[in-house]
């Protein structure tokens, strides 16, 4: 039994075959696995290791290195706020503080209903449109507290 959907399992097999060495597919596979499952549970790690003929330890070592990969669930909407220099100069830290107040959680915590989590992150390539945040993979830019409220409310209503 696979922990992944048939489509994802299929995609992984194609991915492994598309590089000169199958292990090259590891990082993308882990990210796509997380996209589907929300995080990387032990069964997913074991299955990916087996698929690539690597040890679970080797896979875990790689997971530990990359900041986007996680082995515990986050909120359905993972709010990543940039506070690096270009954002800081335009109020990024205030945006982070506002998100925390609004959602009632600290950095790296998840709301009790599992809807939102917050993470302070590094530069996301939106410096000229700072301050910026990403909700999962979606960019939001030129933020102020009122705009942040609007964005969070939209996701909340989306459920």
């Amino acid at each position, binding site marked *: 039994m696979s922990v992944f959907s048939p489509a994802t399992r299929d995609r992984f097999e194609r991915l492994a075959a*598309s590089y000169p060495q199958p*292990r*090259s597919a590891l990082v993308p596979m882990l990210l796509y696995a997380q996209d589907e499952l929300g995080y990387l549970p032990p069964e997913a790690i074991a299955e990916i290791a087996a698929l690539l003929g690597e040890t679970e330890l080797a896979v875990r070592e790689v997971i530990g290195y990359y900041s986007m990969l996680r082995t515990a669930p986050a909120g359905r909407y993972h709010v990543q706020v940039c506070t690096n220099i270009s954002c800081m100069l335009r109020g990024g830290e*205030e945006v982070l503080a506002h998100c925390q107040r609004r959602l009632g959680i600290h950095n790296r915590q998840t709301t009790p209903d599992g809807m939102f989590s917050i993470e302070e992150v590094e530069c996301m390539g939106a410096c000229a449109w700072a301050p910026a945040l990403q909700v999962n993979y979606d960019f939001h830019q030129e933020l102020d507290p009122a705009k942040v409220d609007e964005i969070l409310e939209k996701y909340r209503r989306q459920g």
Partner: protein
Amino acid sequence: MAERPAYPAAHPAEVRVVSQRFGDPRAATLAGYLDTGGYQALGKALGLNGGEAMAPEAIIEEVKKSSLRGRGGAGFPTGLKWSFIPKGGDKPKYVLCNADESEPGTCKDRLILEHDPFAIIEGITIAGRAIGAQRGFIYIRGEYRYVLDIMQRALAEAYAAGYLGANIRGSGFSFDILAHTGAGAYECGEESALMESLEGKRGIPRLKPPFPAISGLYGCPTVINNVETLASVPPIILRGGDWFLNIGLPKNGGPRLFSLSGQVQNRGVYELPLGFPLRRLIEEVGGGVLGGSLKAVVPGGSSTPIFTAEEALGLNLDYDSVGKAGSFLGSGGVVVINDRTCMVRFALRVMQFYRHESCGWCVPCREGTNWLQLALTRFHRGDGRPEDVDLFTDVAQNILGRTLCPLGDAAAMPILSIVRKFRSEFEDHLHGRPCPFAAESSAVPVA
């Protein structure tokens, strides 16, 4: 629900070469790309339009003539880099496109990837032809998922129309490109760490030499270039190296993209001729400083040594001028800082970044960035000791030049320059005094 940056019409000072199709929806499809002059350069290189194919050496020669220098950070001459790839040999060769864009203050590769994906594909293919490679990879940072989707759609279209794959458009040249996602790591933008990551490992840098031209991806000869560097190649091949060179300055060919951010009125990504005065970028193109007067400018991304207002206003933005003034043009990320910003807090935020991103392999970088972050936090809070100021410099000096990859230098250079040029601001935090900038938040909120 996601937002995309809007693209205003070109500022009169701009020379749009790699940004020629920004905001043009036609560039999203292969048909539209062909309609807007796309693939004419590859056609010329492979002799697809009736003319004779260019010899690989002739392609490299043209790029050398253009004085195109790397747009990723180090500014190495691109043609020269390509010429280091050994001719022949039985190992496969690779072209890597570095789309990891994560140097704070830099947001320009994202626009090329989003607005002109085929130009990057064409540039990589020409590079492959020039060095005798048959495969290329585009390493895209994990956060840029929509960009990965755009790139994968573009690749599929290029394959379907025979612009990639076996025997491209009947030329006899075969070339494959795969778009690959990272998963969050600044260090993976460093070329050897990127190769490790692309091999499915932790992004730990490699000891050099051997350089990638001899032993790169999978131990094979490899050229690695930044997105913007590769996107500059088709116009150079099409219009000639001299044309490109003449837009810029000797040894500093062409225009380049500048990401203008921070406390300045008209932030954005602007394509300006190399040698463009920084004063004009801030005042004329940028519309002036926001929320105060100019205090400092970071010229090329967070790792490049900072300039005071006075230094900045006399500076021209080309590799050699910025180098002579003691910094680097880097990734072209210009960050403007006004006089209401606390430089200790700024230095602390920069250090927090490098501490977070240090891969931990080299002790001076791992321990030095950690100590500096802790000490700067304590110092900014008001618990600093007079001797700390020199200690910051001392610790940073002991990171500099003592690490496998330049991340250590990238962490040390900003703090060294900030302490040296804004020492009095550090002293103002001593003896239990609160941060002099605390009363007024230096951050300028978006109107």
